[in-house]
């Protein structure tokens, strides 16, 4: 038997080795193998394999090119030329193709920019991996579930420092709202008044050791001393004109602060500007404007303020951030934190604490953050999905049009094949052509994005910027989109085109073959309309839910009521009486009420536990407390269903309650609670109930009704509610403004209509609704663009058929019906798929709302009908054109 070298190494050698070296190398190796084989066959085999492997080196490996391909540059030039000629000849199709793709890519790019911005929040801090926020884990006594909040007890920051020396930095932070500021001149006189809705923070220098907010002048350390303030460059420029001169200047600040359930006002304090912060980036949840030294005023107060060592004392605006050492186990740290909380807190306080990494803060809609802007991961995913779908629709358009046009290119393909092109070359040609179109579309899309971005910013209340040069991710994204769209849209048409049999192609016998293509095109049209119709139906439901928010009766009057911030002074009810008398003397003012807040608030409520004396049921019930004068009920038209309204009074003497509160106590009839005593704030206030109001929505529709207490207390009034006559509102407002400016010369006057405020609760939803409307419109537009192209192509293809039908007596209506029938069937099939998908998704979305609409059955056919009508209008352009054409013309020419 002849000895043979091992098979696999030999095959491997033959696979990789250059042909011209193979004789020598293989020959030598076999010769060596045969000689060795005589001594030791096993060793020889091993040696052979080893020798083959040793030859696997660049010198001996075949060139990478699989086939000799010498004229590629010439051919590429030719591809470009034929592509551009072809595009120029079919301008209409080229336009539909490029425009459709460009819109799809632009939507994608826009969504990418939005997501990129949203996911970049607070990622510019060098220590971001170690920054954590301390969250309170509320354990409710009545329920097994727990909730989280960003406010922590006042002693937390100091306590952490002593109990956990391994923590590198601890920063307490208090976010103040609605602060009045006055710029002072050298003599202490006021120069200008300002009001900051938000952006005033109290914190310690350690905050800047944790976060990276560079300083232009001054020092962070100045925040160690009370009454120092850092301003951002922008604020310094608005206040003082030039930030360089701002240092050392004084600002007078009047602040209202929240501790526990109470709202307090401190006497004005004078702050000294001790530093200027560089512009705060847009992508941070700390939109700092003024940073005041922690320890100033109430933040330094050990008795009633933020230094109060009581572990049950907290403020909704008080939080704590820590910088943990590297390589710490977070779960372990959380356990230690809980153990520490058990020790520090009184035993009946079951709350515990956890740390949350900074990169989770922007997505946490449960606890929120200081910018009040969060975006859930689900929304990000939905946006991605929509981007992908819209791009898919655009690609489908492209595939449909190019395969439909394939017949026109058949001759070209035939000639090329006859002249020796092989399939892969033709494939290459059409891929190149697709690539050209896609590149054009991407360039166009970039232009569209730049033009549209300001509108998106305004719509979504974002500050996005598009700068391709300092944003490498965008370039990568565009490249990826170009590549994937080229592959997705170009691959199938290229295969179809390159597969043509040259003989058939040259004999124009391809129409028979194209029938298979039509069924695929039908499938794609169905896919497009599934997406478009699902979006339309979804948008219908979102819009309906939005309207429900706006139009649903809330149980009180919200029309033509204006709210103006108000600050009580030490005179008690004298000021309110004076203002009331002044306001009521204006012609258009119908009623005036002073209160802590409006009947409906979104996360701005004062809560307290309450108990009924003698204790009936449950000791730990929570209720919203509203302080208001006796005019509250008539001004907001609340309905009393038992008892009477409050009597005028400065201090708290009586309570009104709502039906929910009565029910929560287990009482059957509202009358049962009358004249019983309720105590709030751990018994600090204890008064009888004098009346019950009918339930109204005291929170946004995301939440159920909460138990409610209304009581007088003139020190707690923070705003006036003024009911206006609906005529001459602007002149009435002028008079109101005059009165206000007289009464509060130091403060910036501002007002807000109650219905606007309620609308703002649903800002995110209305933004989302706007966004979906746009997406649905784009989806249907793109689908119709494809349909239009397809219909016009069909009209050209079937021109003879139409001519013969007309000659045989078909009417124009028959022809239009002929054209429309096919597409209508497709849309109805798409509807059958889209409806359940839309129902499922929207049903899930609605579950977030306690108050939600029922998904009416008629919304679905309505969505389908809209799609059909739009599609019919699109098709009928072409169908009518074909139907009214003179058959003689089409039949006379032979082709």
């Amino acid at each position, binding site marked *: 038997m002849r000895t043979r070298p091992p098979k696999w190494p030999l095959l491997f050698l033959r696979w990789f080795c250059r042909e011209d070296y193979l004789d*020598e190398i*293989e*020959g*030598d190796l*076999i010769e*060596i193998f045969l000689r060795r084989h005589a001594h030791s066959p096993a060793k020889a085999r091993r040696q052979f394999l080893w020798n083959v492997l040793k*030859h696997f*080196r660049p*010198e*001996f490996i075949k060139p990478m090119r699989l086939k000799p391909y010498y004229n590629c540059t010439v051919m590429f030039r030719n591809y470009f030329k034929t592509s551009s000629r072809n595009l120029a000849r079919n301008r209409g199709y080229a336009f539909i193709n490029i425009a459709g793709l460009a819109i799809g890519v632009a939507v994608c790019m826009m969504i990418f920019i939005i997501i990129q911005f949203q996911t970049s929040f607070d990622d510019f801090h060098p220590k971001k991996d170690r920054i954590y926020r301390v969250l309170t884990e509320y354990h409710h006594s009545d329920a097994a579930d727990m909730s989280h909040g960003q406010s922590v007890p006042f002693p937390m920051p100091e306590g952490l420092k002593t109990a956990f020396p391994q923590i590198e930095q601890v920063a307490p932070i208090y976010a103040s709202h609605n602060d009045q500021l006055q710029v002072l001149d050298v003599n202490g006189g006021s120069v200008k008044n300002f009001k900051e809705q938000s952006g005033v923070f109290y914190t310690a220098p350690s905050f800047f050791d944790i976060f990276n907010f560079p300083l232009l002048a001054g020092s962070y350390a100045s925040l160690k001393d009370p009454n120092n303030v850092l301003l951002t460059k922008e604020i310094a420029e608005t206040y003082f004109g030039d930030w360089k001169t701002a240092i050392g200047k004084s600002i007078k600040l009047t602040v209202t602060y929240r501790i526990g359930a109470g709202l307090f006002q401190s006497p004005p304090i004078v702050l000294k500007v001790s530093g200027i912060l560089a512009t705060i980036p847009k992508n941070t949840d700390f939109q700092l404007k003024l940073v005041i030294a922690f320890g100033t005023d109430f933040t330094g107060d050990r008795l009633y303020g933020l230094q109060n060592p009581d572990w049950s004392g907290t403020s909704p605006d008080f939080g704590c951030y820590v910088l943990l050492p590297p390589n710490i186990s977070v779960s372990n740290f959380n356990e230690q934190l809980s153990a520490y909380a058990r020790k520090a807190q009184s035993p009946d306080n079951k709350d515990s604490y956890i740390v949350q990494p900074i990169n989770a803060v922007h997505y946490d809609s449960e606890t929120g953050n200081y910018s009040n802007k969060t975006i859930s991961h689900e929304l990000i995913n939905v946006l991605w999905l929509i981007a992908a779908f819209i791009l898919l629709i655009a690609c489908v358009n492209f595939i449909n049009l190019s395969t439909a046009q394939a017949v026109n290119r058949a001759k070209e393909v035939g000639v090329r094949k006859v002249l020796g092109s092989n399939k892969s070359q033709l494939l290459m040609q059409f891929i190149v052509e697709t690539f050209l179109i896609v590149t054009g579309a991407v360039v166009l899309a970039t232009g569209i994005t730049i033009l549209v971005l300001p509108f998106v910013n305004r719509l979504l209340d974002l500050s996005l910027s598009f700068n391709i040069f300092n944003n490498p991710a965008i370039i990568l994204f565009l490249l990826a989109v170009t590549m994937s769209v080229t592959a997705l849209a170009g691959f199938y048409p290229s295969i179809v085109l390159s597969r043509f049999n040259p003989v058939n192609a040259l004999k124009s016998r391809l129409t028979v073959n194209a029938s298979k293509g039509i069924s695929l095109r039908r499938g794609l049209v169905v896919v497009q309309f599934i997406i478009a119709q699902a979006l339309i139906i979804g948008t219908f439901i979102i819009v309906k839910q939005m309207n429900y928010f706006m139009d649903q009766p809330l149980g009180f009057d919200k029309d033509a009521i204006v709210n103006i911030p108000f600050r009580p002074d030490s005179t008690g009810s004298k000021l309110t009486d004076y203002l009331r008398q002044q306001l009521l003397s204006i012609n258009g003012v119908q009623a005036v009420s002073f209160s802590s807040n409006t009947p409906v608030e979104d996360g701005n409520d004062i809560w307290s536990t309450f108990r009924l004396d003698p204790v009936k049921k449950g000791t730990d019930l929570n209720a919203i407390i509203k302080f208001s004068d006796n005019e509250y009920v008539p001004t907001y038209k609340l309905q009393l269903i038992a008892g009477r309204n409050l009597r005028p009074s400065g201090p708290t003497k009586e309570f009104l309650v709502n039906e929910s509160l009565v029910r929560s106590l287990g009482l059957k009839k509202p009358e049962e609670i009358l004249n019983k005593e309720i105590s709030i704030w751990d018994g600090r206030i204890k008064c009888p109930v004098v009346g019950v109001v009918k339930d109204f929505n005291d929170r946004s529709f995301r939440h159920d009704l909460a138990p409610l207490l209304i009581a007088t207390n003139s020190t707690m009034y923070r705003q006036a509610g003024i009911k206006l006559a609906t005529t001459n509102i602007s002149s009435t407002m002028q008079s109101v403004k005059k009165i206000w400016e007289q009464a509060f010369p130091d403060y910036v006057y501002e007002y807000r209509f109650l219905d606007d405020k309620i609308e703002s609760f649903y800002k995110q939803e209305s933004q989302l609704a706007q966004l979906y409307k746009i997406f649905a419109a784009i989806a249907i537009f793109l689908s119709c663009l494809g349909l239009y192209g397809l219909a016009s192509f069909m009209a050209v293809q079937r021109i003879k058929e139409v001519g013969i039908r007309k000659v045989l007596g078909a009417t124009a209506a028959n022809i239009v019906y002929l054209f429309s029938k096919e597409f209508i069937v497709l849309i109805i099939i798409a509807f059958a798929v889209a409806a359940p998908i839309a129902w499922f998704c929207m049903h899930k979305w609605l579950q977030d709302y306690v108050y939600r609409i029922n998904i009416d059955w008629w919304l679905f056919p309505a969505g389908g009908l809209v799609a059909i009508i739009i599609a019919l209008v699109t098709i009928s352009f072409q169908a009518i054109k074909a139907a009214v054409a003179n058959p003689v013309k089409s039949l006379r020419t032979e082709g």
Partner: protein
Amino acid sequence: MKHPSIGEFEELVLLMVAALHDEAYGVSIQENLVEKLSKNINVSAIHVALKRMEDKGFVKSRFGGITEDRGGRRKKYYVITALGKRILDSQYELRTDLYKMIPKISFS
């Protein structure tokens, strides 16, 4: 004119090609070198050196006839070129020159 450079191992292979005159191909060069140097040399190293020297013009090659004991593959014979010979000469000269510069001292 600057000669293309030659590596130490390439020089050995080139010497062997010259010595085996007309009978030099991969296996014969390897076997003779292993014998002379009494050290294991892989045939791939020989092949690499031959290819490089062929590119540099030190050797030229021709195919031999087909023989049975090579799985039907031809031998590739190498012969030294004039340039290769010159290189060897200059290397030899260089070495003897340097050798002569060694002072006559006893190394015992």
